[in-house]
């Protein structure tokens, strides 16, 4: 068999109060794609950071090409041929593609100035290897999200990396882009002699391209370098969460008789939405599907008054309304928005759990002279935080110290606490582990059963088909189709994709 290019042997890493990795093992075979799986907090990130030299392990060895290594910085790991492509984009948006690719080693002319012809020429080489049809002189900010992702991989290759770590590379890609990425990865492994570590929450993808799987649970190996052929989805999920997966319970569609609660009629916006018309019934989950860049989140932000609606009517309870700000949406019209970007827009990371879970209800709870103390807020939000089973040592814990899943629960809890009639929920389960994901799905269904009307934006097709009553498809800031959901995956995905591609 082929040899191990990268090995972690009995690695332990302690953080104050937590054993992030506990005697964990990992072996990457040369020329293979290896999935690293686990729930949030299982130790994946820690493992990646040890491999890339961000952290140093307390015990155990890091072995590359059968040599023990010890990196004291990510730069050293880079030099040993290890590159990581993060979820967050690490390209400089105002620089050109070529400059970004060559950044660590910019070619210079005789005068010591940057030789831009060389930059273009050398970077073109890597773009060609990847079969990427991008001009090296393009400014990065003009690229689509998918192309940026591919440029990051090109950058990693340009550093002559032989080991590539991809951290949730598909989380912002459309199905088509994902497909392209995968065929590229397979080609890189074959032609460029690259080995890949692939981190993802989407198991379908793991089965599609990975050769071997390592699963972490609570810092320990639930399985180590197992051949993918010996596993199926059920087994894998069980390894990850320690029990069987609950499948999204499809909801009975019982809201068809209800009247429209919120209606958009021929809405045009400053951001370029054209003639958007849709309606939301009471207690309904209305799905908004579309590729990244279809204008779904942007539409919601226009509805909240953050960007301008140029023309068209917005009708709530048969009355025409204008929303000027999220404050007005919340306090006057009882409309809330759970952001897709919980770190930037959903939560105040540097503040504690109590502040974050109560922020939407401060105005409502305040007493005479604006008086508002912690116990008033606590009494109001505690039931919701408990209901969502947020795991936190106390309400004084900073939200930045919680795991991703618990952070997401808090950004949901604050909107439950606010008691809104309409909730816009944007990508509620991106980067969330399976257990929490199932929990949030159940919660969304229950919310709608109890009368909350929901507009759900998600790029996760199974999630959309599991939860929505009706699905509106958007493309290029326009509505291109509406389908009543029959919860049959094959039917629905076919008709949605047909809407997008016709």
């Amino acid at each position, binding site marked *: 068999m082929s040899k191990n290019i990268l090995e972690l042997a009995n690695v332990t890493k302690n953080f104050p109060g937590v054993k992030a990795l506990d005697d964990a093992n990992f072996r990457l075979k040369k020329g293979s794609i290896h999935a690293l799986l686990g729930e949030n907090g299982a130790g994946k990130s820690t493992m990646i950071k040890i491999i890339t030299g961000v952290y140093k392990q307390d015990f155990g060895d890091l072995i590359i090409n059968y040599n023990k290594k010890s990196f004291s910085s990510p730069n050293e790991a880079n030099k040993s041929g290890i590159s990581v492509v993060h979820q967050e984009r690490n390209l400089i948006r105002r620089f050109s593609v070529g400059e970004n690719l060559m950044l660590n080693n910019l070619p210079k002319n005789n005068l010591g100035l940057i030789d831009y012809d060389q930059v273009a020429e050398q970077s073109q080489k890597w773009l060609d290897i990847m079969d990427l049809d991008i001009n090296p002189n393009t400014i990065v900010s003009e690229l689509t999200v998918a192309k940026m992702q591919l440029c990051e991989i090109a950058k990693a290759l340009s550093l002559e990396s032989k080991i590539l770590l991809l951290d949730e590379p598909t989380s912002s890609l459309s199905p088509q882009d994902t497909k392209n990425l995968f065929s590229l990865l397979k080609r890189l492994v074959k032609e460029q002699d690259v080995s890949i570590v692939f981190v993802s929450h989407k198991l379908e993808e793991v089965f599609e391209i990975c050769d071997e799987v390592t699963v972490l649970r609570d810092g320990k190996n639930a399985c180590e370098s197992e051949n993918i052929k010996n596993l199926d989805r059920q087994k894998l999920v069980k390894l990850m969460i320690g029990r069987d997966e609950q499948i999204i319970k499809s909801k009975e569609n019982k809201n068809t008789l209800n009247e429209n609660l919120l209606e958009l009629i021929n809405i045009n916006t400053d951001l370029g939405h054209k003639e958007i018309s849709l309606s939301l019934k009471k207690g309904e989950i209305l799905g908004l599907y579309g590729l990244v860049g279809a204008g779904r989140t942007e539409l919601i932000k226009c509805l909240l008054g953050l960007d301008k609606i140029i023309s068209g009517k917005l009708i709530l309870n048969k009355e025409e309304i204008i929303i000027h700000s*999220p404050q007005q949406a919340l306090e006057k019209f009882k409309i809330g928005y759970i952001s897709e970007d919980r770190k930037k827009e959903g*939560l105040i990371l540097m*503040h504690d759990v109590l502040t974050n879970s109560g*922020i939407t209800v401060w105005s409502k709870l305040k007493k005479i002279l604006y008086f*508002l*103390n912690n116990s008033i807020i606590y009494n109001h939000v505690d039931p919701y935080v408990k209901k969502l089973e947020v795991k936190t040592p106390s309400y004084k814990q*900073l939200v930045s110290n919680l795991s991703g899943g618990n952070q997401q629960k808090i950004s949901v809890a604050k909107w439950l606490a606010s008691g809104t009639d309409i909730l816009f929920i944007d990508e509620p389960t991106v980067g969330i582990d399976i257990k929490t994901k199932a929990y949030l799905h159940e919660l969304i269904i229950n919310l709608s059963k109890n009368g909350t009307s929901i507009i759900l934006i998600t790029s996760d097709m199974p999630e959309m088909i599991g939860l929505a009553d009706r699905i509106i498809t958007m493309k290029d800031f326009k509505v291109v189709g509406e389908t009543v959901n029959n919860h049959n995956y094959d039917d629905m995905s076919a008709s949605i994709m047909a809407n997008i591609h016709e």
Partner: protein
Amino acid sequence: MKNKIPDFVKTNQFGLLLLVIVFILLFTFTTDGFSSRFNIYALSRVVAIDIMIGLAMMVVILTGGLNLSLGALGVSAAMFGGWCMESMGIPISISIVLILIFGSFLGWINGYVTVKTGVHSFIVTLATMSIYFGFMTLLTEAEAFRKLPEAFTDFGSMKLFKKYISPLLLLSILTCFILYYLFKFTDLGRKLIAAGANPDAAELSGISVSRMFIYCHMLSGFLAAVAGIMLTARIGAAIPSMAGHLGFDWLLPAFLAPVIGGTLLSGGKVTVFGTMLGAILVTLINNGLYLIDVGEFWVRFFLGLILLFAVLLDRAREYFTSKNSIVS
């Protein structure tokens, strides 16, 4: 085993308190006259104003911004007050209300321009600093108001507690308690902090961030006006140059107090009593160095050094608050 250490001991404020005590002991034993009644009284009159301008800066730093116009604004308000009392003969109490409204209005201009243009308040207040001070000099023709009502100037020279403490200090401490109440126990205070910490998240959670930012600037103008009134009462006259050219003399203590006190320069965190202790510490060091007689240059040198150190401390704080979340 669990040690019963009160939370207070682990805070930045406790460390500051210890430092203050250390410096008091140090200066008491190394200098002549530090603990004299005269010096303590003089200290209390100075520290009162330093606390007030520290607070005035703190409430803008809360938004992640700065208020460079602080000194110019405070002096402008004080000169306006001198004009009200001396030239117009308006009663003291009404004059004070007018001064506070005037200060808040100048603060509102800072806030409104910052929010509407989206330009960093550093630039906006750099401009208004010049504008306020320029207008003030123009209108007063750089003349002082020296015949203020006696009841007003008497307050500035009043001595309490066996003649050790100026009532100005009590006013500043009272202001600290009021601000503490605002930030800790009111809906409005929480919103101000949330808006400063993460404007995007606060806006989407139903808080009008621009309004909160304008409130912060207004509060800053209000507190600067209070400081202006206090300085006028202390000197017994309203003098255009009483805070230096363009109000520069106020800027160093204004930054030092909140930054030493633990207010994050990036916004979203306030420490009212930290700012108070920071101001006390700065005044103490200032005073002690003068008593040791090291010379004006060295005093400024040390204060500059302390500011740099405090900023490093600020970076460290930010680093450690973000590094708490190493496990994901």
